């Protein structure tokens, strides 16, 4: 079965520090990849997505992610974080499964940015 692994469960950074959150998935075929964000008290929002083409994907709020097929990875990056980036981040993969394509989520990474 497909799975998604996020290596960092909790990350604490100071403002202006650089961010990289790791994500690996297990499916070997064609996949769609996503990062979602959940700000405190808010619902899940799509941060960015990869379907095909340029493996470096730009998202909202200065986030980007790089798809490396050979490593089954889709790491999220931001050069300089802000206090407002404090949130939980979920990596997700959409891949074939029983009954059709399903979106599987990683365990999530809680990011706290110190002002």
């Amino acid at each position, binding site marked *: 079965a497909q799975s998604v692994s996020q290596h960092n469960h909790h990350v604490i950074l100071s403002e202006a520090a650089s961010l990289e959150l790791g994500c690996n998935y297990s499916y070997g075929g064609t996949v769609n990849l996503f990062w979602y964000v959940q700000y405190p008290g808010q*619902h899940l929002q799509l941060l960015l997505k990869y379907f095909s083409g340029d493996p470096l994907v730009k998202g909202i709020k200065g986030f980007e992610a790089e798809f490396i097929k050979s490593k089954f990875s889709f790491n999220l990056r931001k050069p300089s974080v802000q206090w407002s980036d404090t949130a939980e981040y979920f990596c997700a993969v959409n891949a074939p499964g029983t009954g059709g394509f399903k*979106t599987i989520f990683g365990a999530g990474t809680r990011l706290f940015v110190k002002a």
Partner: protein
Amino acid sequence: SAVISQKPSRDICQRGTSLTIQCQVDSQVTMMFWYRQQPGQSLTLIATANQGSEATYESGFVIDKFPISRPNLTFSTLTVSNMSPEDSSIYLCSVRLAGGYNEQFFGPGTRLTVL
């Protein structure tokens, strides 16, 4: 994107009772899903809500416990039956939009506490 509303937003229920959660979307959707997010954990797919037919359940979830209806393209209900404290969780409705890619949009969730 889409505006997804869920009712109720939260509830506190007694053991052994049932609660029905409603999900309404303001756009044409192709697929609707129900997820559970237990405290401190990631999202787990409960089932895919199929219009006019029985939902497709994931391993570990059964229709008797989580009956789902989807009478039309933009509305679905999830019932949590014969509740126990282990059912305390956030229940999320999610959709894929007609004409979109495979990204999913999420409702605000229903926070359920079972005493």
